[in-house]
């Protein structure tokens, strides 16, 4: 298993074809509809793509670096959704101005990251570590852990859906070139780009990222040099679950509602994203998220009846073309 470490940082990778899929899809869609409709759908699709990326990046990171496929990932997404509901219930932000609203959202993101990361550490300690090196039991135990997490969230927050109105400052939008652009979607796009850039920089430009990549490459050597590889991996796991919770915040605010099934609904999309992108690949995850977001929007507009099968169809097409995903990691 060779990790993200070997991925080239620049977008000009070895194989340019996968990067052309996204523009090709956009051009094809443009040919099939009016420009204003296309622009609206494209912006909305990119925003959904960024939300998918936020929810999926943690899963692909944990898999790429630790070789653990966390089937409880959806539970951490749900956790983030309930945290934002709790923060909004404690601090009603609808009255304040834009700054106050953004402050509350930032607070919710931070709280979700802390809760997701903290619980991730517990999860790693109690479950993941016990089944290291046994892939079958690893899948089973994360599935079981995910059920417990989801059910505990229902015990704590109730089974009824919680309404989560977005703050005034994040509602509505503006019109550019005949296309309606929602403010919240713009914010989500920005957040997605920031997280993407931060993940890349952290892995490729910091000492910590260097150590993590080194530990993936040769754990014994890193330990022989006096670093605790185990702590590094624990950190990776916590970062992945924290990102899942952040994804949950973003989805909950988008949906305007929180249910305990949020994670279970979305984990399917997340899996499709990481399969299309290539398991463990950060850039692949980003590319596949945008692809899925756009394809869903275009198909939903052009042929609503086919919308249900878009994700599966896209996955099948990509797998037939590139069985290992669009931007797979080396080796394996």
């Amino acid at each position, binding site marked *: 298993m060779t990790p993200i470490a070997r991925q080239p940082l620049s977008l000009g990778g070895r194989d340019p074809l996968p990067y052309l899929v996204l523009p090709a899809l956009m051009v094809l869609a443009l040919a099939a509809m009016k420009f204003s409709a296309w622009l609206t759908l494209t912006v909305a699709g990119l925003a959904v793509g960024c939300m998918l990326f936020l929810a999926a990046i943690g899963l692909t990171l944990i898999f790429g670096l630790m070789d653990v*496929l966390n089937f409880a990932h959806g539970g951490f997404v749900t956790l983030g959704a309930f945290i934002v509901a709790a923060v909004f219930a404690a601090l009603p932000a609808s009255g304040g101005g834009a700054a106050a609203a953004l402050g509350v959202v930032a607070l919710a993101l931070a709280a979700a990251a802390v809760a997701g990361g903290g619980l991730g550490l517990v999860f790693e300690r109690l*479950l993941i570590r*016990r*089944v290291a090196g046994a*892939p*079958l*039991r690893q*899948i*089973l*135990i994360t*599935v*079981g*852990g*995910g*059920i*417990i997490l989801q*059910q*505990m969230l*229902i*015990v704590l927050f109730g*089974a009824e859906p919680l309404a989560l109105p977005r703050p005034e400052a994040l509602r509505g939008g503006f019109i550019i070139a005949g296309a309606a652009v929602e403010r919240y979607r713009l914010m989500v796009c920005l957040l997605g780009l920031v997280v993407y850039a931060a993940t890349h920089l952290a892995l490729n430009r910091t000492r910590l990222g260097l150590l993590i990549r080194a530990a993936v490459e040769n754990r014994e050597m890193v330990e022989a040099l006096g670093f605790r590889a185990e702590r590094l991996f624990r950190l990776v796991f916590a970062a992945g679950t924290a990102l899942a919770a952040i994804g949950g915040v973003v989805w909950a605010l988008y949906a305007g509602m929180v249910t305990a099934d949020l994670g*279970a609904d979305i*984990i*399917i999309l997340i*899996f*499709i994203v*990481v*399969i299309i992108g290539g*398991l463990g690949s950060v850039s692949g995850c980003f590319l596949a998220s945008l692809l899925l977001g756009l394809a869903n929007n275009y198909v939903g507009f052009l042929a609503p009846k086919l919308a*249900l*099968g878009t*994700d*599966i169809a896209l*996955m*099948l097409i990509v*797998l*037939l073309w590139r*069985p*290992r995903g669009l931007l797979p990691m080396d080796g*394996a």
Partner: protein
Amino acid sequence: MRLLSQDRPGHWLLAILLAAILLALAGAPFLLPGTKALAVAARILIFIVLAASYDLLLGYTGIVSFAQTTFFGLGAYGVAIALTGGSGWLALILGAAAGIAVSVALALAMALLSLRVRAIFFSMITLALARFVQVLASEWRGLTGGEDGLTFSVPRLIAPGFHPFAAPILGLRITGPVIAYYLIFAVTLAAFLILLRIVNSPFGRVLQAIRENPFRAEALGYRTIVHRALASVLAAGFAALAGAMMAMQLRYTNPDTTLSFSLMIDILLMVVIGGMGTLYGAALGATVMVMAQYYLQPLLAALAAAAQGIVLLPALLDPERWLLWLGLIFVLVVTFFPAGIAGSLRARANAAARAPRT
């Protein structure tokens, strides 16, 4: 022993438990009269086939699928759709055959598509597929009846209103459902023995070799993808057969009873608790789990009532939260008891056999 394909239970306690289950199921309509007991016994039979088919995949081949309910559902919907449109044995058999055929084709396509890459892809793709089929069954009202599902009538011989004999036999009035029960019993017994034959054949040995070390199996010249794909096809076929029996027994089919994710968790638990990689374990696990489903929920309700007033405890013990307890049991079994009941008993018997006699 020939009938069991030379695969002995391995431990006297396991043999006794299995014999007890077999006898109890064979005599269930006479031992425990009443429609509820009959329904529980039929459910145990059907889930023995379903869990055993899943064990072929999980326990013997070592790949995790989340689409076993999908094939179960396809079998059930095959029968349901055929009996909604037509009636009689021909419709029932054609519906079951169609469900099995579609399941086998789908499993083959999925296996060839995903197992080429990595076994873990298979897990993720089956999860996506299972969800997709569940949504499809709820949305495609014209064919599947949506969330409400389909209610239909079965051939007269196994319908509730059928009374072939005027007088009771051994104190039991023979009705259509009793005949249906024995039909299911016969099919289950046959299916279980066939599965036992499969896992103890050379093909089954190769599956276990792949589970233990895919690279070594490949190096020895076995085409792992072909074997894995065949295993998933066989598992899908038997699951669809179980689904067809479920539809025949319940006389209705809806997404919740055949396609839901919690059903998938049930199957996982049956195989893991019973013991992965021993078909006897799957049979034991199915029996334990179906019984627990019928008796655990009332137990939780009683405990919740007793715990009134204590912080959080009533919410934890709410019967609606039984999935929480199943999840907890599941994690504990996987962590501390990974061989399950049958596997642990066998390991103990093997250890005793190897110990030096004094």
